[in-house]
């Protein structure tokens, strides 16, 4: 089935990513429609669009998450496609289906793709079938019967982790260290899953103690062609939220990562996958374990852009326009190393949100430095949405050069009026273990504990 061509794109998102998508559309000669809530009315990127429409009041539930308002805005503006960005309605299969039913193009995967990967158990089953290595544990939901869950846990070996099928991104999971804790953990996770995701299906996996988070970026045209665009390491996380990412993931033999990449490509072809996607893995002792697939453009896509030289958002839009992939796998090369720091409006010690007016906004520059942000001096960071206000991205011929540029750029950067996590980034990128590379997903949290501990001592507490 051919998809309707379009010349005008409605950007159903806000902030930094709305501007990123707007830039990609303009570079391709596509017209843009930006929709905004009353809280984002004065944001500078709104004025850059060919057309701007207010879709509702500040709360996301009444603006960026209001499917009817978005479809009406598309209809009223004559847009032929909707780009969901990330977050909000990006991985909502019902919305993707409604967009297509309205005769518009959803710039993303098919509703079926989103549904298949949204249910973590069905995703795991599909990955096992496609030969993608998964975390040890059954590819089906746990029985309500305690004895059978107990037998499963013994078979896997403690510690195990219990997860909600409808969860993901760190939500709805519980680690069980020993059998005595199992019964309580099962009923708690089941109850949480029912309340948070509307379905009480849970499943069990081996809990890995010190893994790295390594992910593979894929691009597929939905016509049977797919590519993998290299790896990223997103291990520095706090409460399952990524803080700093790099590409490529270091310390992995080229043939090992190429084999994982090829398996992800095979899975995309098997699924009839369309658009951008990310296969997330835990990597421990050299082995890879699939955890979930994100069916969207990701926050950290720029590090892949820096090392491959591709405009990933443009590639995503080309697929949506129905163009077959013209690139082949051997065209994808990776040059140098890239880092991305997520700059958040939050207290660097307590992580309390810090919305408000930015009084000073001084951005770094120089070779290999890129800033993706919608903010500026005088901009009022609204309290209604996510705290990310900018992404600092750097590239260098080697990891060492990129790291030096990163530290320098962080030092140059000044944001006043609100609190940001800049001081945290500045000291983290100078940590000897981070500089060596390959830290695990728990490293940042233990590093923070230590940093806070030594600060308390200094203050005589």
């Amino acid at each position, binding site marked *: 089935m051919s998809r309707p061509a379009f010349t005008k794109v409605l950007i159903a998102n806000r902030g930094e990513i709305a501007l990123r998508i707007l830039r990609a559309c303009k570079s391709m000669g596509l017209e843009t429609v930006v929709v905004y809530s009353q809280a984002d009315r004065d944001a500078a990127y709104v004025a850059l669009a060919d057309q701007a429409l207010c879709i509702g*009041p*500040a*709360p996301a539930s009444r603006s960026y998450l209001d499917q009817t308002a978005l479809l009406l805005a598309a209809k*009223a*503006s004559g847009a032929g496609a909707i780009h969901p960005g990330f977050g909000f309605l990006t991985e909502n299969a019902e919305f993707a289906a409604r967009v297509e039913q309205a005769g518009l193009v959803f710039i993303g995967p098919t509703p079926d793709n989103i549904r298949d990967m949204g249910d973590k158990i069905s995703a795991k089953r599909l990955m096992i079938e496609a030969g993608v290595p998964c975390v040890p544990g059954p590819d089906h939901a746990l029985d309500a019967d305690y004895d059978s869950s107990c037998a499963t846990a013994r078979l896997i070996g403690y510690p195990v982790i219990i997860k909600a099928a409808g969860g993901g991104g760190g939500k709805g999971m519980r680690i069980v260290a020993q059998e005595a804790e199992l019964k309580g953990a099962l009923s708690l996770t089941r109850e949480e899953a029912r309340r948070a995701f509307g379905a009480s299906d849970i499943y069990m996996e081996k809990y890995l103690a010190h893994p790295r988070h390594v992910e593979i970026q894929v691009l597929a045209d939905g016509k049977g062609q797919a590519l993998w665009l290299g790896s990223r390491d997103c291990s520095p996380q706090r409460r399952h939220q990524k803080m700093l990412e790099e590409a490529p993931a270091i310390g992995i033999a080229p043939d090992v990562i190429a084999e994982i990449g090829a398996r992800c490509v095979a899975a995309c072809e098997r699924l009839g996958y369309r658009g951008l996607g990310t296969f997330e893995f835990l990597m421990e002792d050299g082995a890879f374990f699939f955890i979930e697939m994100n069916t969207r453009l990701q926050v950290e896509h720029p590090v892949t852009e820096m090392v491959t030289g591709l405009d990933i958002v443009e590639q995503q839009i080309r697929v949506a326009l129905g163009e077959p992939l013209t690139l082949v796998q051997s065209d994808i090369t990776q040059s140098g190393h890239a880092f991305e720091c997520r700059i958040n*409006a*939050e207290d660097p010690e307590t992580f*309390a*949100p*810090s*919305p*408000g007016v930015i009084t000073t906004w001084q951005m770094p520059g120089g070779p290999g430095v890129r800033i993706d942000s919608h903010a500026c001096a005088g901009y009022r960071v609204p*309290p*209604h*949405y*996510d*705290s990310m206000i900018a992404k600092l991205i750097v590239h260098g011929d080697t990891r060492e050069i990129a790291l030096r540029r990163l530290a320098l750029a962080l030092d140059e950067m000044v944001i006043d009026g609100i609190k940001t996590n800049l001081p945290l980034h500045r000291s983290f990128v100078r940590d000897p273990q981070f500089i060596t590379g390959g830290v695990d997903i728990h490293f940042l949290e233990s590093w923070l504990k230590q940093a806070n501990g030594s600060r308390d001592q200094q203050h005589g507490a």
Partner: protein
Amino acid sequence: MDLDTIKALIDSMAGSSRPEAECREGAWTLKLTRALPPSATQSQAELSEAAQHGSVKVTSPLYGIVHLQPSPDAPPFVEIGQQVAIGAPLCVIEAMKVFNHVTAERAGTIEAIVIGNGEEVDVGQLLMSIA
């Protein structure tokens, strides 16, 4: 229904005093609602006068959105005239998906509530007073 029609309807409603309008055309229904000014129960001036009579002001610890109820269907945390103990929850200030509870720093009677539910408040902005 095209953009010009919608704009014309918005303009005509802006020129009237109607709080709400609805119109239908074919399969379309368009409902226009006027954003009402927040339903503050007492003016800031009245409150500052009250404050001089020994009452305690409750201010917002951060820039965020005020929630006067624990959830949309629940009754409000406190109402005017209600007795509160130290530490009693008064309201919640939401910022970037983090919910911060504002509690009573002293026992007393809720004298005034000067902000409306869902309103944006600045750091240090007056929320309530306890007599």
